[in-house]
């Protein structure tokens, strides 16, 4: 069910001109500053921008090309709009049921219960949208889009109005969802955290043009993209669960550069796991240190250095062939006399690792 798409739209001051592919499964994050065209692109993919020219192929089905345009209601998609946009005349239950009843595929009666449960909507089912708080409305909108079991999921900042606790509940479910359903998900987000956690792929949009596209871990590690110079720059590391320390409820995760120790032991041995390491959480020492609370210390080689503002440098280390970004002060870099090729140790606080 991979997606091939290209859209062109001219709107005076703004014009959209993109071509991209989405892998057949997994989450692709759509990332870019306000007003760069994220919503416009999603709308075009949903068939809601009649002026947009372009093509779109989902799996083997052509949704749109030069001559042909499948109308929105025939496109099997779930779309969470940037504003909740609930139907004011229907209560929560009937809002959620609306799309479900109209699915072509075999009705999955259970999916209603599942999304209601996931999004904590039991007590709200009989309310009208006007009687809900902002976050509650957004949860209903997410539930409504998820309940249709679509071939393509378009999410326009679905979690923006939710609190951390609720996000922490929904994110893993979205992850498991896309793993189970194996459909492509295009996810607009401003939060690097969410992106890092959820997305496999990344589309970087700037002023209507794609400035980069590719796997999240590659893009996050590139020093030439503006991504690298945000306060929350991070590296994504692909690992495999090697085993557990039952006494302390820790997990061992192997990657090409060594073995991570991670709090928690939910993941079964042998399963893949993605780690997120913030550049701010990595420190560099010349010697391997003892008597420290930091568990993850790896030998590394300085690969490249780039100024990051005037007081700091961004250092790309190599842990064998795994790149790792690390942000330190210029002063530290000078005092440690860092330069490409130098052998050092990278210290990563185990608790700074995310699934």
């Amino acid at each position: 069910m991979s997606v091939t798409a290209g859209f062109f739209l001219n709107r005076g001051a703004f014009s959209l001109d993109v071509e991209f592919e989405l892998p057949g499964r997994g989450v692709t994050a759509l990332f870019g500053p306000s007003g760069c065209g994220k919503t416009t692109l999603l709308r075009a993919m949903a068939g809601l921008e009649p002026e947009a020219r372009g093509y779109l192929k989902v799996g083997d089905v052509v949704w749109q090309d030069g001559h042909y345009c499948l109308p929105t209601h025939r496109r099997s998609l779930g779309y969470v709009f940037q504003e909740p946009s609930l139907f004011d005349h229907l209560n929560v239950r009937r809002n959620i049921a609306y799309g479900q009843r109209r699915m072509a595929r075999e009705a999955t009666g259970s999916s209603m219960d599942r999304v209601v449960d996931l999004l904590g909507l039991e007590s709200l089912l009989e309310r009208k949208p006007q009687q809900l708080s902002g976050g509650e409305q957004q949860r209903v909108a997410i539930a409504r889009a998820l309940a249709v079991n679509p071939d393509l999921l378009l999410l326009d900042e679905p979690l923006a109005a939710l609190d951390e606790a609720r996000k922490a509940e929904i994110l893993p479910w979205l992850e498991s969802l896309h793993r189970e359903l194996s459909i492509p998900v295009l996810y607009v987000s401003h939060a690097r955290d969410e992106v890092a956690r959820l997305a496999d792929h990344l589309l970087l949009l700037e002023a209507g043009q794609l400035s980069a596209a590719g796997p999240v871990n590659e893009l996050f590690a590139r020093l030439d993209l503006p991504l690298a110079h945000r306060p929350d720059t991070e590296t994504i590391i692909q690992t495999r669960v090697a085993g557990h320390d039952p006494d302390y409820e820790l997990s061992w995760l192997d990657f090409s550069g060594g073995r991570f120790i991670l709090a928690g032991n939910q993941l079964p041995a042998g399963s893949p796991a993605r780690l997120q390491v913030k550049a701010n959480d990595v420190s560099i020492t010349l010697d391997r240190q003892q008597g420290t609370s930091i568990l993850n210390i790896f030998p590394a080689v300085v690969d490249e250095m780039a100024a990051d503002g005037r007081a700091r440098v961004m250092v790309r280390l190599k842990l064998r062939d795994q790149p790792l970004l690390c942000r330190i002060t210029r002063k530290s870099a000078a005092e440690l006399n860092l330069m490409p090729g130098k052998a050092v140790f990278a210290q990563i606080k185990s608790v700074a690792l995310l699934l």
Partner: protein
Amino acid sequence: MFAEQDVAALLLSLKLAGLTTLILLMLGTPLAWWLARSHWRYRYVLEALVALPLVLPPTVLGFYLLVALGPEGPVGRLMEALGGSSLAFTFAGLVIGSVLYSLPFVVQPLQNAFQSVGLRPMEVAATLGASPVDRFFSIALPLARPGFLTATVLGFAHTLGEFGVVLMIGGNIPGRTQVISIAIYDHVEALAYERAHWIAAGLLLFSFLLLLTVYRLNRRLPGART
């Protein structure tokens, strides 16, 4: 208190008003929808045309209808060519006249209501797999409810009270085209004021109760934030 003939006239009026309102809603809804949604450049010409019958006095409109329905009028000829007979002095003719005359009272409130529904709910419904017809019925109609209420009330009441057009093309045939408005008028003109008062009072009371019921059922739910 009420003569048999007056009762017959009242029933005929209700039938006429009901049928006219039904037809008006059926014709007016797609028209209003189209007017509310179309981006056609000359849409406003059609909007102006819809409101136009209003500016003619009903009797004059009735007169022209009579001309059109007559054997030499376009509609009359068409009917004859089709093997039918003239529509003047028939109930069907009354319906046609009333529909034409009350059209703007139905189309305009509906058009406004559809406009205020906005595009967004329709777009959302489309992404949820609802076809245009489906989303029209499941989303646009319920959201436009106040407009439908207004359209129905104005259309129905206006037809009940309508008089000039009906008088002109109906021929005031008791039991066939004599509606209640004409009956009251007749009593007033014939100086049978007492009888006119009774019927007018009855009609007002009946209509008031009807309107009361309609508006009462339509009360907004309390406590809604927006």
